[in-house]
């Protein structure tokens, strides 16, 4: 526990002093408010720059709050996720590669504490960013498209936070297992690219961690997916597996730290 607090302080200082807690939430806020705004102004934008032929009638589909929150979610799940994964994929591997870890690994540290401290800070960063992004999106959604039930929104947000915990556990496990370049490739293939593949051919199955945030979104339209609980359960199991794998490999690869 002492080890954990000491290492957590170190990781937090790193994230704080490199301004990650500032720029990452700002990025998510921009991503979150982009869609409600562009959709709202779509007609004006097309009218202004589209040079539409005289008499052309533009029928915009009527958008509901869930459509806007879905659009924002897909921003977080593509651009936001790639940035988050790319930022954290080097968290363990870089220290090994440049020799900074050597001065820690020669001490009687617990690799469980080491992994958990990094996972805690990475998750905190991801969750704060996700919440900030959704808050921005929600503000414009309510302002421009109609109200959203508070309970439903909180359920959706909680579900997204669980997804972030999985994202960070998988990213850090990759970082524990491989060098930075390989870790980043694997984590991006598993997470953002995995989401994309699941959304293209995922109609053949219903139980998949990549569908978790989509199931969470359904709360907004007042429904609860029949697969929600099972997916939630599956996600928790995968988080535990990724964390265990990460701890195991952080320890096993400690000897590869550059001296």
């Amino acid at each position, binding site marked *: 526990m002492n*080890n954990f607090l000491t290492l957590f302080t170190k990781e937090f200082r790193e994230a704080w002093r490199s301004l990650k807690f500032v720029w990452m939430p700002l990025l998510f806020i921009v991503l979150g408010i982009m869609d409600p705004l562009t959709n709202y102004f779509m007609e004006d934008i097309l009218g202004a720059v589209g040079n539409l032929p005289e008499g052309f009638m533009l029928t915009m589909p009527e958008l509901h709050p869930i459509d806007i929150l879905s659009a924002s979610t897909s921003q977080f799940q593509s651009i936001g996720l790639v940035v988050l994964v790319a930022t954290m994929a080097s968290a363990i591997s870089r220290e090994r590669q440049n020799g900074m870890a*050597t*001065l*820690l690994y*020669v001490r*009687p540290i617990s690799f469980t504490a080491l992994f958990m401290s990094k996972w805690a800070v990475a998750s905190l960063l991801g969750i704060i960013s996700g919440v900030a992004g959704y808050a921005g999106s929600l503000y414009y959604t309510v302002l421009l498209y109609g109200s959203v039930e508070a309970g439903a929104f909180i359920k959706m947000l909680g579900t997204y936070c669980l997804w972030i915990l999985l994202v960070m556990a998988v990213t850090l496990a990759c970082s524990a297992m491989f060098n930075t370049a390989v870790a980043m490739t694997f984590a991006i293939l598993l997470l953002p690219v995995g989401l994309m593949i699941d959304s293209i051919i995922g109609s053949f199955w219903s139980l998949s961690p990549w569908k978790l945030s989509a199931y969470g979104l359904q709360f907004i339209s007042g429904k609860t997916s029949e697969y929600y609980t099972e997916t939630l359960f599956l996600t928790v199991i995968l988080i535990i597996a990724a964390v265990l794998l990460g701890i195991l490999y952080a320890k096993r690869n400690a*000897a590869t730290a550059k*001296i």
Partner: protein
Amino acid sequence: MITVSNLTKTFGTQTVVSNVSFTLEPNTATALIGPNGAGKTTTLSMLTGLLAPTSGSIEIAGVKDIRREIGFLPQYPQFYPWLTALEFTEMAAKLSGVPGPAAKKEAERVLAFVGLEEAMKKKTATFSGGMKQRLGMAQAIVHKPKLLLLDEPVSALDPVGRREIMNLLKELQQQTTILYSTHILNDAEEMTDQLLFLRKGELVESGSLTEVRAKFEAPRYRIEFVTQEDALQFTSQSQLSATAAGSTVYVEIVEERPKMQQLLERLAASKFAVTKVERVTASLEEIFMKVAGQ
């Protein structure tokens, strides 16, 4: 006392360290000497616990987890640039088991000891090579380890920095056991109770400086002539096993022959102008070359 028995490390089919055994007495300094690639760093890595030995053991009398009792300074210590020297040293102390409130005090103490009192609140990103080496020293001793391991502690430093670190080491030697690797023999000569020669992963020679010297001592006479011609002429005429190097001639002594007396008489009888005659013993450098070339 620290006992290392039959330490071996193989990577695939390559044996990097082979069957190395030695003991380190408390509060002594031991120099691990050998050419590059001799297995010095690998040996130190195993002692730190970072690298698991293929076979063999390392024991510190009366200690269970040796990682608690080891301080390690790598050749090129790398620090987290966003932490200050004090924050880093305090973290190092805590991770080595120094309780929270004492950790900061100890960190301040060792930072003052290594001469970083002024810079302890500065981020390490701004540190020069010499300052990093001193910070590396501070983090290695902050938890008062029984065994201090240093990998080429002064090789990368300028003469002033080297002097400072050597002085720190001499002071530390009063309270802790030191094992350091080096390929710079002057440093080894300056501070060592025991020498360990590594060659191709094997411990080829060990003992105190005097012991090793006695064993490899190649006594000889060194004669300085005024001119190079004289030196060459003496070498060819003398019928001794002599070699000339410029205006200096070395005469080997085999079983105490020739005696100094004989040599002087012969020189006196000759017409050569001589400025100096002395009996010399091998330097560590020469011993090193001999051991390395065995």
